[in-house]
């Protein structure tokens, strides 16, 4: 008689063992984790969610002064606050996704060591709560954006590619998540990477057209920066809202393929790690 088991635990499982059905069954947990992330950050603060605005505004002001006025880096005739702010908020989303998922194992080792749930829920929830923070910061950007549109003096024009914004966000999330999954899996064994992540993200930002427009870059340097998939997404994002920048089909196609590869690699390596990480962390 052949018996029917609901669950079989074995040592070595298939290379890609992604149980989407199980993740779907735990969707309530995902929303609760998101809620926890958002609610607990500003408990016992007076200003509460207002703090979500403060960081991008302050960063923007610093950029306006340092890169705009002191270093006098061109912003392609776009008002400086708008130029920097657009870059900051989309970069924030990537770095939030990446930083938060890249410490999944190390920050949750206590919980992971005590109870089972599909581990992928954790990084996914970080991506979603990052999206909520992005939405709040995006509304700030919209206010500034509308101010300059109504003002009418600056040469900004939105383009039809605005419709692609959700797709750009998806790419950003995919890249952040994919890299995060790879890094968190590697750090369980090799702690060295933790140090790399800290300043790696900082450096990566300078390889992405956040504080400068792509049009400023020429020659070999442009080739190098074009290798960075984030550059194409950020440029496309800026172009959609501001009408300046590059919307390159090949660039976006490259970024898409890159994202898919990183994401698949991330999920694969994460899956392999999660089964035994408790023993090595």
């Amino acid at each position, binding site marked *: *008689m052949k*018996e*029917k*088991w*609901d*669950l*079989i*635990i*074995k*040592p070595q499982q298939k290379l890609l063992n992604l149980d989407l059905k199980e993740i779907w*069954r*735990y969707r*309530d*947990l995902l*929303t*609760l*984790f998101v*809620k*926890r992330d958002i*609610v*607990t950050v500003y*408990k*016992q603060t007076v200003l509460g969610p207002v703090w979500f605005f403060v960081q991008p505004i302050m960063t923007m002001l610093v950029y306006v002064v340092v890169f705009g006025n002191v270093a006098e880096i061109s912003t392609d005739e776009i008002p400086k606050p708008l130029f920097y702010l657009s870059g900051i908020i989309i970069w924030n989303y990537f770095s939030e996704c990446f930083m938060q998922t890249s410490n999944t194992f190390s920050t949750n080792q206590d*919980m*992971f*060591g*005590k*109870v*089972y*749930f599909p581990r992928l829920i954790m990084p996914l929830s970080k991506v979603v709560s990052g999206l909520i923070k992005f939405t709040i910061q995006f509304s700030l950007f919209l206010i500034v954006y509308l101010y300059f549109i109504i003002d009418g003096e600056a040469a900004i024009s939105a383009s039809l590619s605005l419709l692609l914004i959700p797709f750009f966000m998806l790419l950003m999330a995919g890249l952040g998540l994919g890299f995060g999954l790879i890094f968190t899996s590697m750090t369980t*064994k*090799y702690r060295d990477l933790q140090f790399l992540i800290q300043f790696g993200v900082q450096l990566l930002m300078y390889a992405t057209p956040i504080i400068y427009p792509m049009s400023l870059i020429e020659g070999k340097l442009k080739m190098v920066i074009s290798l960075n998939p984030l550059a194409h997404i950020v440029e496309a994002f800026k172009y959609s809202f501001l009408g300046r920048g590059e919307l390159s089909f090949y660039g976006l196609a490259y970024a898409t393929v890159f994202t898919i590869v990183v994401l698949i690699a991330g999920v694969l390596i994460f899956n392999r790690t999660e*089964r*035994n990480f*408790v*023993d*090595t962390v």
Partner: protein
Amino acid sequence: MSDIVLSVENLSKQYRIGEIGTGTLSNDIKRWWAQARGKEDPFSLVGQVNDRTKKAESDFVWALRDINFEIKQGDVLGVIGKNGAGKSTLLKLISRITAPTVGSIKAKGRIASLLEVGTGMHPEMTARENIYLNGAIMGMTKREISRKFDEIVDFAGCALYVDTPVKRYSSGMRVRLGFAVAAFLEPEILIVDEVLAVGDSEFQKKAIGKMKEVSEEGGRTVLFVSHNMVSVRNLCTSAIVLNQGQVAYTGNAENAISYYLKAEDKSHIDLIDRTDRQGNGQLLFTKIEFLNSNKEIVKQVFAGESVQVNLHYKVCEKFDASKMILVIQFLDNQEQMMAAFPSDEHGTVFNIDFENKKGVISLTIPQLLFRPNDYFIRIISFLGDTRAENQIDSVSNADKIKILNNDFFAPGRLIRNGNCALLPGNYSS
């Protein structure tokens, strides 16, 4: 249809011992190279039996080796064994926290593990929010939790504080809240690890009652790991004894407990040679003797006979003898305490012979009145007060004494067998 809900086959788990980190990269490459050629993992061949008292011979150790057992629906299986026997590793494997090295586990239905209560609870959030979060971590859906919410709050007894952040709770209340959520899980298989060790006695009773109810009425299966033989006996229908990562005994709970205690019974070793003692060692007990009413050294006495317990000691370091507290306890074969003789409450002040560095402490018991059985002696000594960190020298199972049947109360009336202390008294009507 078979009603086996959990089946464990040839389960083994290997751990690396010593420092993890140095040399892992080269080992990783070797391992990867072997796998790439389709060969067996070179490191799974080595490894030694898990005996923590022996010195390591290789870098790998089998925390569990060839574990086989099955649980039927509605059974409560106890897992007992001393520290490091592999109990927690077994639970971790079954609850999918870490993967086995060899072997498989097959299960029917949902498994929920309670290796800790209140996992993932966030101190800043209210009890309400935490019940939802903790429930979801345990695998419940929002709807299930909403349905049982009032019951959970009621069981935890925290209705008044539902909207208070958990950080304001006492630690006991936090545990109750966590357990309450867990108690209303409806998995087919529930895995519980010594969580009952926390909380007050009222709550422990509640918790044990709930677990019984779950298995008896709900027909659900429970896997229970504990050091507490009393709760294992109260709760479990069958039990396995783990020793050095292997199953040493499988059977009903009662037999498993006595097997375990017999294996743990070190009373045949001379007291002076015992290494499993606690305390600072300023004074060490070297020998224990029982003297019957004729002042003969014996191993057994009749129920109700007078007994003198002689404790020989040697002094290793001078201390303030007037502050010494000695407690001699009698325990039954299920590790339940039957009687205690605390010197501080007796008002005894000891004279320790610091000149000769050795001597004898005697305890005279006018009537040692227990039901006929074997009883174990535990010696605990303290300096100053009875906190665990103030122990001088303490030994469990220091020796055992056999109580023989006797007609103590009335001529010709033998006392029934059992394990219980009796007290003299007179009925009248």
